[in-house]
């Protein structure tokens, strides 16, 4: 069996490829579970129970998916323009820092305070995105490099801010690497009926629709898609490449920044590095699996959210380390990326007489 490139996509074949990828994902995950001495059956049962088994579990899945939806959309919109931003991780942290800073500086409280803090978080992420945008548009500094390096800068900025005397909370005998909590009135309210899901989940869903409309229906989205496919033609037809890069980096940064401040107000209720780590990088994976479309990103984020939520149950019920969830995420990425590539090819029967000389 050989594979040759397809001249057009075939929905049935694409569905088949993703089906195989899902099967491969479970198969390889089962092998990983076996390798640590666990029972795959028990593990998957626990995974399912913890992610979708009860109404409460569904809430947990949505809660875990919320930041990933936002960082996923952040990556997706940049990748549609073929701007390879890896800066979501730093933008999450910077958004959290900016939003938390705003609660301190402005003494925010109540619903209005929540709105201002979320806005400042988004603006913080956007500002960091714009730094890389300006570097690329004005000085031709590769976006991949500037965003990766800024991730480190912002990570250390957070550690610096969390030392005692600045924002760091000083305990009785030791100081923790975390800030004091925000006011109770700034906690994001839970969505009625889904106690684990805070308001951020709803915001993420609304933004998924908004990003979908932005990419598919607006002038800006048209330019983003066109720029990703053929920047030369877009520039020749009057698109200002620099302005477009800035717009994309600002929107992308704002989405990640919102994920950051959302985690602070909705989950950890204070600045804590471990409560922010990983969402940015996982968001990239989510966007790649979701083919950089809004809906695809949402589905991929929910899948990863289910893995994260179910991972805890798996640990408790089947005594399997929840760290395996990270390995499963990696397996999912590879399987689905291969499925995407496979969907662009078609199988051909073995060649007879092909190299007749």
């Amino acid at each position, binding site marked *: 069996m*050989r594979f*040759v490139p397809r*001249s*057009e996509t075939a929905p049935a074949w694409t569905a088949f490829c993703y089906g195989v990828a899902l099967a491969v994902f479970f198969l390889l995950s089962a092998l990983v579970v076996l390798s640590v001495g666990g029972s795959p059956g028990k593990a998957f049962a626990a995974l399912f129970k913890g992610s979708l088994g009860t109404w409460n579990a569904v809430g947990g899945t949505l809660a875990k998916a919320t930041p990933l939806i936002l960082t996923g959309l952040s990556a997706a919109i940049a990748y549609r323009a073929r701007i390879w931003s890896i800066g979501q991780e730093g933008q999450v942290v910077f958004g959290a820092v900016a939003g938390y800073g705003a609660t301190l500086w402005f003494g925010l409280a109540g619903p209005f305070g929540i709105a201002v803090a979320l806005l400042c978080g988004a603006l913080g992420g956007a500002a960091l995105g714009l730094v890389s945008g300006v570097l690329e548009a004005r000085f031709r500094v590769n976006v991949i490099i500037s965003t990766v390096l800024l991730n480190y800068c912002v990570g250390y900025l957070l550690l610096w801010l969390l030392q005692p005397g600045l924002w760091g909370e000083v305990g009785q005998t030791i100081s923790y690497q975390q800030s004091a909590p925000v006011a109770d009135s700034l906690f994001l309210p839970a969505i009625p009926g889904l106690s684990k899901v805070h308001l951020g989940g709803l915001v993420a869903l609304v933004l998924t629709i908004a990003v979908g409309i932005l990419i598919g*229906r*607006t*002038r*800006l989205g*048209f*330019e983003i*898609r*066109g720029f990703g*496919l*053929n920047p*030369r*033609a*877009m*520039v*020749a*037809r*009057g*698109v*200002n490449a620099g302005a477009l890069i800035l717009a994309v980096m600002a929107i992308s940064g704002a989405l990640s920044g919102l994920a950051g401040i959302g985690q602070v107000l909705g989950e950890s209720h204070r600045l804590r590095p471990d409560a922010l780590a990983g969402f940015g990088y996982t968001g990239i994976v989510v966007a790649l699996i979701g083919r950089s479309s809004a809906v695809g990103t949402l589905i991929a984020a929910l899948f990863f959210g289910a893995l994260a939520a179910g991972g805890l149950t798996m640990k408790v019920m089947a005594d399997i380390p929840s760290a395996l969830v990270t390995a499963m995420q990696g397996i999912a990425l590879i399987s689905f990326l291969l499925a995407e590539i496979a969907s662009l090819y078609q199988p*051909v029967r073995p*060649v*007879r*007489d*092909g*190299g*007749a*000389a």
Partner: protein
Amino acid sequence: MKTMKLLEVYRLSKRFGRTVANDELTFDVLKGELHCLFGENGAGKSTLSACLTGFHKPDSGAIMLNGREVVFATPAAALDAGIGICRQHFSLVERFTVLENIVLGTEREHLRFDLATARARVAALCERLGLTIDPDAPVAMLAVGERQWVEILKALYHEVRLLILDEPTAVLTPAESARLFAIIDRLRGDGLAVILISHKLTEVMATDRITVLRRGRAVATVRPAEVTPVQLTALMMGEEPPPVPARTLRHKGEVVLEVEGISVPGPRHDFRLEGAPLAVRSGEILGLAGVAGNGQREFLDALTGLARPTQGTVRLCGEDMTSASPARWMAAGAGSIPEDRYAEAMIGEFSIAENVALGWHRTARLSRGPFLSRARMADFARDAIERFGVKQAGPKTQARALSGGNAQRVVAAREIARARHLLVANQPARGLDIGAVAFLYGEILRAAEAGAAVVLASEEAEDLLAVADRIAVFFKGRIMGVVDARTASLAEIGAMMAGRAA
């Protein structure tokens, strides 16, 4: 005589979705033959050559080489079987040297390949063909004509028995074209068969046999002696050829475009306009003659906002546009049909509706607030498809599914609609069939009659003599002279194209 047949194609069909690109196509090529495939854009020539070279797999039918059926799963398999192709768009790695490009693809057999042997073989090949080309020069440094030789050397290095040349002379000067055909003759003496895809009737009529393709079918195989060029064109189109449009007496209005003393940097030649300013009036067509790469592109880039002159001024309708952006040129009523439609004017993955919207997408015509109106885009596309005769397509058709001629019609529809004051076109007819060329020039003439100043660059001086009012001849980044198209002769322009002053 069966043993003489090198290639036989029997009832070959290839469909893309609902489009039938090749429909039960049958023809054959003899050993040592120069065989022409002749047909309009979209008649199925490119699909056929893709099937013959393993890029596409036919849906049905058979390909026989030396009497044995072959099935190519990959381009490499076709190359191994002895079928090579030189494409219209070069497939060379610009940063590699000539030698590296030639051996590219042969390294599969061995873990490391022997560059010294390869160098000797390439040198021998060059000597046999009478070519002088530096094997260590990076391809990026070569002129377009020289790249064509590299493409051919690459195929011959693989020891092909059948070579497909897809519009090989589109980028060659007349002298280089003559040389190419001399080389082809020499190769045919060694038994190589050549399939030539060309729209140029003089080349077509100089081949051994011509297979005419129309709508995916091989409608006839004829010898040049049996037909006249007009009959051949009628066969190709299925009807009498349209009259070639010619310049009519036009009312020339105010000066629209004024260019004075500009200097534009270019990769091979900087363009510099010396002496008298160049002015183009409303309703006038200024032709730019010359082999591509002699400064036309730099000059035209200064009229679209893609390049900013380092000195001098450009004015449109009296307004200084010297450092205007493409967006400002477009807003000022200037349209542009660029040289390479797929790279510069279209987005292959976009639909026709999205492609006609390019550049219009921020205007009230297609958008409401921040949103694009899909309904208006579709209306605009339907209008363009109908008025410009884009065949077998609707607003949702992907641009990359269009043939060259149809793609150019989409681009022309979009840009002419914009060209209230100025229309710039760089080699718009390159690679198009006679029907599409006649239509395109007709539309350009109509734009001029409607009052636009037109700047039209073409390597076909005959076309310019028929269509333009004045012709500026380009050579090495300078204008050798501007002649009146009504009185100038082809010989005069040809001499100036080669660098001799008028």
